[in-house]
Every structure is written in structure tokens, then in C-alpha cells.
């Protein structure tokens, strides 16, 4: 029983990083922009989180600062891809290189230093005493509730039940029609790409303030790329993105348990699980569930720059 409680608790904690970053990427891709810079944004967010918490001793301020830094880099990326309409793949890769390189350069003085204050688990009275599941669901840090409850529910409502959400999805599906209907394509794209990047920055800070919690050069370890892949698996839905993050948290947790219990598998192979798992997750569903394809399909204008006067 302890094993299941431990697995679930770690799964929520480990999956939070991916869930948050994937929700952010859902926002960008739903308006038609692929942001491959998540890995770099997370690196900057992770470093900002550590730097801010070192200065202020407040993890909340650290998280907010990381959101802000993510938004600033996101705005630069959005300027290039939405306003100038430069190649999204290249700008995303560039953002990854810039973010990673910059964070490592500035982060040298924080290397290996544990966070002075972290997001601590808060046990909700009574509920957290439920056997097996109580600890995993109701004794977590506050960001867990933001990532798995507030953001998915709030964003799903916004995207699928409001006029604004319809406009937003129209921009990703058919920008020319949205434009003709009086929706400002560039404004909506800029807004959501920037917001998504802010969440990616937040995901980085989650890593250094709630999960690891310290800064080192390779701390992101490809999680940004996994998050981008999860968006495809999640069918571009915020709720599914959170769930996919949790699923990956479970895979990571299995690896931890395997290491702790001395399973006869080298740690390097257990560390490969998330990457190989992700690869399987983006390939298998396409082949296995042909009928689901339309429901899970990418926004029709994903990756396409929108020029008003080119027809």
C-alpha cells in the first residue's frame, strides 16, 4: 500500500512540470503557433526561480518572477513569429539555444545550491487522512492544485464554452476566416503565445522550487521537448495535457522506485523511459486509433504564418 501511495504522490509531483509546460504549449498551438522554445523557456524559468528565491526567500515570488521572464522571452518569440512571421521552427530552436545557453551562463553562481525556500506540501485536514489516496491527492504543494485543477478547468471553460474561446480556436483553425469575422488574428496569437511561454517559465521554476529543488546545468533534461510532444498526445486539450503530464509523472515515479528498490536495470536505462515512452505515445495512437484522428487533430493552420493580403 505504501508503494502505491508513494508512486502516486511522486507521480503528481514529477508530472506537474510536464503538465504545466504542456498546458502552456496547448495555448500557443491552439492559436496556430508551434513554440519549440519550451526547453529554453523552462531553463530561464528554473534559473529565475532559484535566483528570485535566493534574493527574497519567497517561493511564490520566485514562481511569479519565472512567469514574468517566460512572458518576456515569449513576447520576443511572438514578435518574430506572429508579427514578422519568421519561420516558427527556427525561432523555436533559437529560443531553446538562447534560453539554455543564457541560463547556464548566468546560473554558474547558483550551481548545485539548494533552494533556500520551497513550495511545501500542505495537508488538507481530514481528506489527507483517507487511506492510500489521501496523501497523494490532498497533501501536496499548492502548485499541484493550480496545475491539475484550476488551470485545466479554467482554460477548458475559456476555450470551449466562451465566445472568446471560439475566436481563439478559429484563429488556429482558419485565420483568414477569423480575420474576416473581425477577430484580430495577430493580437490573439501574440497574447496566447506569450501566455503559454509564461507557463513554460513557471514550469521551470516548479522544477527548481518544488520538485528537484536546486539549479544545475542539465536540470531541464529534455522535459521541454517531452511537453511539446505531450500536446500532440493530449489532442491539444488543456485537461488532457494535465492528465498526460500525470501519466508521465507515473513513468518517472516508476523509474525512481526501480532505482530505490534496486531493480536489476541500470539507472541509465530507467532514465531513458520518459523519452522512449514519449516516442511511443506520439506514434502509437496515430496508428491504433484511426477513428480518433479527427477529434485529436492539430489545429488546421498550425505552423502557418498568416498574411492578410496573400491569397
Amino acid at each position: 500500500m505504501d508503494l502505491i501511495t508513494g508512486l502516486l504522490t511522486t507521480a503528481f509531483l514529477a508530472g506537474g512540470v510536464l503538465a504545466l509546460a504542456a498546458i502552456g504549449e496547448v495555448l500557443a498551438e491552439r492559436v496556430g503557433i508551434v513554440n519549440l522554445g519550451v526547453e529554453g523557456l523552462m531553463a530561464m524559468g528554473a534559473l529565475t526561480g532559484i535566483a528570485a528565491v535566493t534574493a527574497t526567500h519567497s517561493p511564490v515570488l520566485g514562481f511569479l518572477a519565472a512567469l514574468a521572464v517566460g512572458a518576456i522571452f515569449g513576447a520576443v518569440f511572438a514578435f518574430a513569429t506572429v508579427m514578422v512571421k519568421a519561420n516558427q521552427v527556427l525561432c523555436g530552436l533559437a529560443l531553446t539555444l538562447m534560453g539554455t545557453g543564457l541560463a547556464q551562463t548566468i546560473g554558474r553562481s547558483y550551481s548545485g545550491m539548494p533552494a533556500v525556500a520551497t513550495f511545501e506540501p500542505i495537508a488538507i485536514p481530514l481528506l489527507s487522512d483517507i487511506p492510500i489516496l489521501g496523501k497523494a491527492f490532498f497533501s501536496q504543494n499548492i502548485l499541484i492544485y493550480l496545475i491539475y485543477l484550476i488551470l485545466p478547468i479554467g482554460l477548458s471553460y475559456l476555450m470551449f464554452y466562451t465566445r472568446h474561446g471560439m475566436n481563439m480556436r478559429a484563429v488556429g483553425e482558419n485565420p483568414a476566416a477569423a480575420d474576416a469575422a473581425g477577430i484580430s488574428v495577430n493580437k490573439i496569437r501574440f497574447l496566447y503565445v506569450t501566455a503559454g511561454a509564461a507557463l513554460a517559465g513557471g514550469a521551470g521554476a516548479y522544477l527548481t522550487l518544488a520538485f528537484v529543488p536546486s539549479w544545475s546545468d542539465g536540470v531541464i533534461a529534455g522535459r521541454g521537448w517531452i511537453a511539446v510532444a505531450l500536446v500532440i498526445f493530449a489532442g491539444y486539450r488543456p485537461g488532457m495535457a494535465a492528465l498526460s503530464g500525470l501519466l508521465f509523472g507515473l513513468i518517472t515515479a516508476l523509474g525512481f522506485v526501480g532505482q530505490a528498490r534496486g531493480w536489476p536495470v541500470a539507472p541509465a536505462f530507467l532514465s531513458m523511459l520518459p523519452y522512449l515512452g514519449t516516442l511511443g505515445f506520439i506514434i502509437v495512437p496515430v496508428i491504433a486509433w484511426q477513428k480518433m484522428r479527427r477529434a485529436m487533430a492539430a489545429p488546421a493552420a498550425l505552423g502557418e504564418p498568416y498574411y492578410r493580403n496573400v491569397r
Partner: protein
Amino acid sequence: MAYRIQRLPSSTPLIAFAARVIAVVLALLVTALILAVTGHNPVELAGEVLSSSLFDSFGLQDLGVIFMPLMLTGLSVAIGQQIGAWNIGAEGQFYAGAFAATAIGLFIPAPVWLSLILMGVGGFAAGAIWILVPTLAKAYADVSELISTLLLNFVAALLVYYVATGPWHDRMTNSATPKVPAEIPEFWGAIHWGFPVAILLAIVLALVLSNTKWGYEVRLSGSNPSAAKYAGIPVRRHLIMVMLLSGAIAGFAGMLEVAGTVHRLQGGISNNYGYIGIMVAVLARGSLVGVIFTGAFMAFIQNSGIILQTQGLTTSAVLAMTGLILFLTAIGEELSYYRVTRDRV
């Protein structure tokens, strides 16, 4: 008379080249500015870099040692681009090639010449195998190769790290395999015969692409897949072949790194060459001969990072600068489609 800004359907090579030069110069200026603000003297540092890399025989050799893998990973990415595939996994294929070459070099006893040939074939094959799953997924299920190729980079890095520190480790170092006995002979300092082979490979591939029916079909499949399909060109078969070739070239780069430069397998042997190779291909605008020149340029940038390390700066700063160059190049490429025209009223 009124001026009008217009986006044209195509851009000319000259303007695209100018846009790249401007992007690079801007990126260097921004970097110099940041260095100056953080209390360094950019002019002095630039002088240091130039004198110890371009005007020094050992410096030039160092440059060559970085140039070769970069040119080949750039060639790998550029080959993929011909048919519209982004191989972001050259890093992993490089590792795979280095892994296979080391395995052959360490465990198959053979005379040096035969061993080198086997290692070369092994490097090609391992690179192709490493990109096989993403290739088939793209060809048959339309799964984007961007992420699938990239994810395998992490797997390859972990695999190489595992064997270099685990089952194959050298008793002395613990962090690398023993020395691989077969070495590619050198002809000028650290520069070995893999160097001309790599350049020849780029030129031959460029000639094949521009002068054969196969090359024409590949380029057409890349620029207009539906027209190519309509014309009866086997687009899918070409896509699979070109992507496997792209992986094989990156794997070959990994083999050359083991057999010619490092002589053993160690974690991190790929040195970001795969990622910077993307930069090399983008700067060359997909030209296979172009990667020889842009590879040399990026080698210079990377080498500067190593020189600047002695001045208390990290190589990560160069990674950030590479990102900035890529970012500005992408913007410059888009802007190169615009013209200011003057129309008479």
C-alpha cells in the same frame, strides 16, 4: 510617386546572403554589448580570439578539428531539408555512430585498414538505424519528425554515457572507454584524412542532387510533394531514403570523431555538434556545398567559446550567441522576401 512594401513569393540568393551577414553582425554586436556591460573588453577579447585561432597554426588545427563534425552534421540536416524533413536528431545519430565505431574498434580484431572501413560502415549504419523509427513514423503515419528525432538524442546520450562509465569503461579513467586501436592517420598536426573525405562527400552529394534524375525527384518531392506525387514520383520512398541518408551522415561524423580525433568513447562526445549542425544548414540555406563554408564559420564561433573559457567565460555563452544568430537569421530570411517598390501614380 508612392513607396510600397511588398512581399514577393521568392527571394534572391544575394539578398538572402546579405540578410544572413546582417544577422550575424547584429548578433555579434549584441554579444559584444553584453560583454562590455558585464565588465569585459570586447575588442580585446575579439583580438585574442582572432590571433589565437586564425593567425596561429595550432589554432587553425583546433578549428579544423571542430569544423569537420560540424560540417558533417550540417550536411546531414541540409540533406534532410532537400525533401522537407527537419532532422533535429543529428546529435543522437552522432552518438550512435560513435558508439558503433567504438564497439567495432574495440571488440572486432582486424588490421587497421580493415577496422577503419568496418568502423566507417558501422557509423553510417548506426546513424541510419537511429533515425529509422522517426523516418518510418513520418513516412507511414505522418508523425512529425521534429520531436521524434529529438527525443532519441537523449536516449543516445544516456546509452553512450552508460557504456563509457559502465561495461566498457577503462580501468584508468572510469569515464571513458579504453583507446580504440585503429586510428585515421593525420596529415597536418591534428588534421586527419577524414577531413578531405568529408568535404568530398559534401561535393559528391551536391553533384548527385543537382545532376541526377534521383536528385531532381528528391528536390521536387521537397518543394511540392503533391505535384511530385501527381507526376508519379515515389515521394515516400525518396523520403525514407533521404532521411536514412541524413542519419547515416551524422553517424559517420560520430565515427570520424572516435577514429580520428578523440580515439575513445566518452559521455558528451557529441559536444552539441548535432544542434549546431542545424545552424550550419540554416546559414547555408540548405546548400550542400554551402555547409562547407558555414561549417567553417560556425567552427570559428565554437572555437571562440573555447578560447574565451581561458578568459573566465563559459562555453554556454557561445550556445546562447548561436541561438541569437539563429533567431536573427530566421527573421532576416523572412524579411528578405520583402521589397520596397515605387509605383507611379
